[in-house]
């Protein structure tokens, strides 16, 4: 036979809860209890409040550049719920505040990071998470390496989830990570938050493929597209991927289709390149609205509860900001602390004098005997 089909493929899409709050009872049967959904809705709401405050903090000069999570909360929420805290590892990009919080990172650490303090990346002991990653895609390889070390050490019942955007799938790191994960069959879940935009470049200019999920086919990896604003679909897909991973089934790929309702970061203004009509259409698909509609239909939510939640969220967020701003600003001495396991002599001299020249560092220098080092400079936040 001169020509035959040697590979057939299809991409499935999962949606359980649509934008009107309609629920697919068959697909979603027994997936999440009302209590779990209420909890998830509350978490997403708190995250949204934090997002709004973070934006204002940046605008008032109290914080550096910040990437809003707005509109994408169901992706990290549903997927983080499907992973096991304290056991699995979360390797985030930078739009997964909820996932980081749910797996043990205090929210004020995240703010501290965006306030420009590396100590916000000082993941507390027992929290299985890497610092959030901003260079685009580089952390996907670290996630693969972490999953690989689990496999090498025969650590059963653990998996890794890593997040990235649609734009990151153009990076070599993405393809390297996918190839290694697949050839080594390690327990890692690649979760693409397809939010349609890589700063100002729309998805269709980023790639010619109609789905991101199909990129995983090249690596013979189980792959699925889900409605990323649908908490249930995201949870279901991640749960299945995790089960596969811990049973030795190797890596999986999930494309969570969502939309970046905010700007890329506070340094961006999406109105300059994005149609208002497109934004409006997606505002209607907001995961918070949809989850609330579901809960109201279930009789598990009402305006009174919403008012109470908003009030509580405001209080919580205020405390988060207070905690982050309450941390004493780092001193210039501090930036020498985490350069090496032990401070090398040349750096010690720089620390003691705050000079990169040798002035004052070598006592035998002519004319410098007795000259003392300058006072260490205190940095203000």
């Amino acid at each position, binding site marked *: 036979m001169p020509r035959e089909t040697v590979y057939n493929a299809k991409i499935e899409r999962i949606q359980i809860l649509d934008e009107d709050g309609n629920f697919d009872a068959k697909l979603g049967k027994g997936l999440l209890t009302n209590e779990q959904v209420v909890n998830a809705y509350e978490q997403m709401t708190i995250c949204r409040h934090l997002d709004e405050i973070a934006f204002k903090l940046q605008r008032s000069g109290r914080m550096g550049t910040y990437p809003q999570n707005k509109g994408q909360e169901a992706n990290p929420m549903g997927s983080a719920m499907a992973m096991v805290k304290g056991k699995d590892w979360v390797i985030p990009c930078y739009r997964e505040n909820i996932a980081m919080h749910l797996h043990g990172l205090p929210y*004020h650490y995240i703010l501290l990071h965006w306030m420009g303090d590396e100590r916000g990346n000082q993941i*507390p002991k027992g929290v299985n998470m890497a610092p959030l990653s901003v260079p685009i895609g580089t952390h996907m390889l670290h996630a*693969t390496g972490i999953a690989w070390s689990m496999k090498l050490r025969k650590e059963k019942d653990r998996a890794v989830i890593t997040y990235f955007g649609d734009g990151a799938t153009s990076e070599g790191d993405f393809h390297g990570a996918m*190839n*290694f994960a697949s050839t080594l069959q390690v327990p890692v879940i690649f979760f693409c938050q397809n939010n349609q935009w890589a700063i100002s470049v729309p998805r269709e200019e980023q790639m010619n493929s109609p789905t991101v999920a199909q990129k995983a086919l090249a690596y013979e990896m189980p792959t699925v597209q889900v409605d990323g604003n649908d908490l249930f679909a995201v949870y279901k897909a991640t749960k299945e991927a995790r089960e596969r991973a811990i049973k030795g089934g190797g890596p999986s790929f999930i494309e969570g289709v969502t939309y970046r309702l905010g700007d890329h970061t506070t340094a961006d203004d999406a109105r300059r390149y994005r149609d208002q009509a497109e934004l409006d259409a997606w505002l209607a698909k907001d995961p918070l609205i949809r989850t609330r509609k579901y809960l109201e239909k279930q009789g598990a939510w009402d305006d009174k509860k919403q008012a109470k939640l908003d009030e509580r969220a405001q209080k919580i967020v205020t405390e988060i900001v207070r905690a982050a701003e309450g941390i004493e600003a780092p001193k210039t001495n501090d930036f020498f602390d985490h*350069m090496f396991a032990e401070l090398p002599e*040349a750096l010690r001299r720089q620390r003691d004098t705050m000079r990169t020249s*040798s002035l004052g560092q070598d006592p035998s220098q002519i004319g410098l005997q007795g000259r003392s080092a300058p006072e260490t400079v205190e940095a203000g936040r």
Partner: protein
Amino acid sequence: MTTAYTPELTEIKDAIHPALGKVEIPDFVSESELPSRDGDRVIQYREALREAMTEEMRRDERVFLIGEEVAEYNGAYKVSQGMLDEFGPKRIIDSPISENGFAGMCIGAAMMGLRPIVEFMSWSFSLVAADQILNNAPKMLYMSGGQWGCPIVFRGNDGAGGQLGSTHSWCVEGMFANVPGLKMVIPSNPYDAKGLLKTAIRDPDPVFFLESERMLGDKAHVPEEEYFIPFGRARVCREGDDITLISWGRPVHFCMEAAEKLAGDGIECDVLDMRSVRPLDIDSVIESVKKTNRIVVVDQSWPFGSVASEAIAQICERCFDWLDHEPVRVNTIDVPTPYAKNLEAAYLPNAERILEAVRAVVSE
């Protein structure tokens, strides 16, 4: 969630370097206490590297080797010959051709406490992994606020390998040594190669270990007993009072060749092999310059912003008044590495060019 936000930590505590607790940092001895360099256990540079890796892998099961062709093929340059047989495919790992991929993945493995040795067939190929090896590994500890170190060794051939053409002959030290957070080691002989590589594997920070294809076949006595050479300690290869000659890696041999010829003319050189450039043992250089009052720095990378430039800047800062002649650099010529045999030889900081520089410096 029913409670208000109750942060467990309102104060950031000092982090502990995660790798440190599990690292057995060797007790370094002085140069004179190291095993003798003289003896009849003569092996090749590549074998010395293999011994270092093998000894450390026998001792510590967290150590593994990954790279292109390192397993079945026994290494593109046979450095890992026989290691697959001893350690099996789980610890001697043939990688897909994806330098950025395996470098990044091993950073993840190192964050989890494994201790990868990453072989680049050539450091020229590490350029495609630059984001991982420069933008991630050396910053991991810093950017995680001290939470994750990166105990990893990147090793491979550096510099002109003998008619490999410009894209395969990179000398990366000039460019990479600029980056804070990494250590860079460039051994010039089999004895040092073994002692330094063992130290590199034990080191809790990322180490860039630069070998040379042109030296892999070099032979010397390498002791059987275990020894470690610390980073940042230069070795005096030859003593003299007239001029200080410093270098690292392969050009150390060019310096020794030049010094031998100069001795015939009555010019005695103090030759220092720096062994590591990050950290750089500038104190030993200063000490020598205060004795000889003259210095030539030999470096097989391009002159602009090179390690030689840095060494000379520090010499000027710290012992300007001891100098009887301006310091002189001998680098490779500032062009891509030529393909032609004669041009490549002329391009390198060879003994001829060193002789010329030294004669100029001592004549005034």
